[in-house]
């Protein structure tokens, strides 16, 4: 993103005492955690533990049954009115697991959609902006393609481009590495690091890909037993929690070496 003008104003997210149940099953019970401003936080945990639900709560797509989600220590996004949700989401970009691109529209139109809806820019300016994000996420010659014609990695990139095109202060990525081959995973990793360094927004990622977590996370939130433990990756592993040690067993050897 060369000559990217305005940097994002990173925001801090803090969840306090979240409760959530679905179909009679309690998924979260008094869950509290913090996502530091401007950093990459990775949410990990077993399948079905509510990682995606937590992300959707921060995005106001799901509401917790109890508890608060504070933005910069003050605004509670768990209890916003419809209009406030609109305003808040303008500051948030989200990459969905399957990309969530509208498959009746071309890739270009998908990425241009948020600008056409909100910015009021002329079409030439929109074209420049979209091509700039395409370049930043490493996409070329995809303008007229439909999402169905893209590969898995390209779909993630296009989804990321759409999430970034309005320069969000908070970027949420739901399983950005799922279903990708190892080289593509590394390229997406680099891309996320690049975006974090150059745009400077807060990033919250869910993943069950431990190697990646260890490589990119500034902060790890692990969901266990309907609550969360968190910390810097190395501290968390060194903390001696048996549940954490079990979960990260596959990368336990590599961590001391990999972490600076």
């Amino acid at each position, binding site marked *: 993103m060369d000559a990217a003008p305005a940097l994002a104003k990173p925001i801090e997210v803090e969840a306090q005492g979240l409760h959530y149940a679905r179909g009679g099953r309690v998924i979260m019970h008094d869950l509290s955690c913090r996502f530091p401003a401007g950093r990459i936080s990775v949410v990990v945990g077993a399948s079905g533990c509510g990682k995606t639900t937590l992300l959707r709560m921060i995005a106001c797509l799901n509401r917790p049954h109890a508890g608060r989600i504070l933005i910069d220590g003050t605004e509670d996004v768990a209890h916003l009115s419809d209009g406030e949700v609109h305003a808040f989401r303008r500051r948030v970009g989200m990459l969905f697991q399957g990309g969530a691109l509208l498959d009746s*529209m*071309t890739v270009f*139109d998908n990425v241009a959609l948020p600008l056409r809806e909100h910015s009021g820019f002329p079409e030439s300016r929109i074209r420049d902006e979209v091509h700039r994000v395409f370049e930043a996420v490493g996409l070329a010659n995809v303008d007229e393609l439909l999402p169905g014609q893209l590969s898995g990695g390209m779909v993630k990139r296009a989804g990321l481009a759409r999430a970034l095109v309005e320069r969000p202060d908070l970027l949420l990525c739901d399983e950005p590495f799922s279903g990708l081959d190892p080289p593509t995973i590394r390229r997406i990793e680099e891309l996320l690091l690049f975006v974090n360094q150059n745009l400077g927004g807060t990033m919250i990622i869910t993943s069950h890909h431990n190697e990646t977590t260890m490589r990119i996370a500034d902060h790890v939130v692990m969901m266990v037993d309907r609550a969360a433990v968190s910390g810097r990756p190395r501290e968390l592993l060194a903390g001696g929690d048996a549940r954490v040690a079990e979960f990260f067993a596959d990368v336990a050897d590599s961590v001391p070496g990999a972490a600076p």
Partner: protein
Amino acid sequence: MRESPRQELWVGMFVLVGLAAAAYLSIAIGNLRAGGAGGLEIVATFDEIGGLKPRARVVVGGVKVGQVKAIDLADDFRARVTLDVDEQLPLPADTSASILTSGVLGDQYVALEPGGDPTTLAAGDEIQFTQSAVVLERLIGKLIQNLGSGSSGDGGADGSDDAGGEAADEGGGAE
């Protein structure tokens, strides 16, 4: 969000053809007139309308010129029939109206017979000369009564005159 022009063309054609079909259905088949309310309204009062119904045809010399708009009972217990006829038609003031039947058992309709008066009927005018419907059952009933009581009957004479008159008029109308 850019549409292929072909798709837009198809949609445009679809809407145009659909609206044209709706217009045809309304105007050519549904008899909708641009003026809305319709043509010239004139009134005719009959002693007996038989099976005449609203929307029945109004003809001049067998050619359809309008339809029966409404039927109601006048103050003197006669049937007041409102006719809706083509306003371009200069009907003389002495036009007469009769209720006829198409075929033996067919629908009943109103036949107008223009006279020679130079003044024409205006909206709301009443037709002076009317001929009631022939009710077949009554006609047959009277015929049987006449045959049964013979020529010497007292009350039957009145009825026989009446029936004869109507039959003659029917013949005249059919000419």
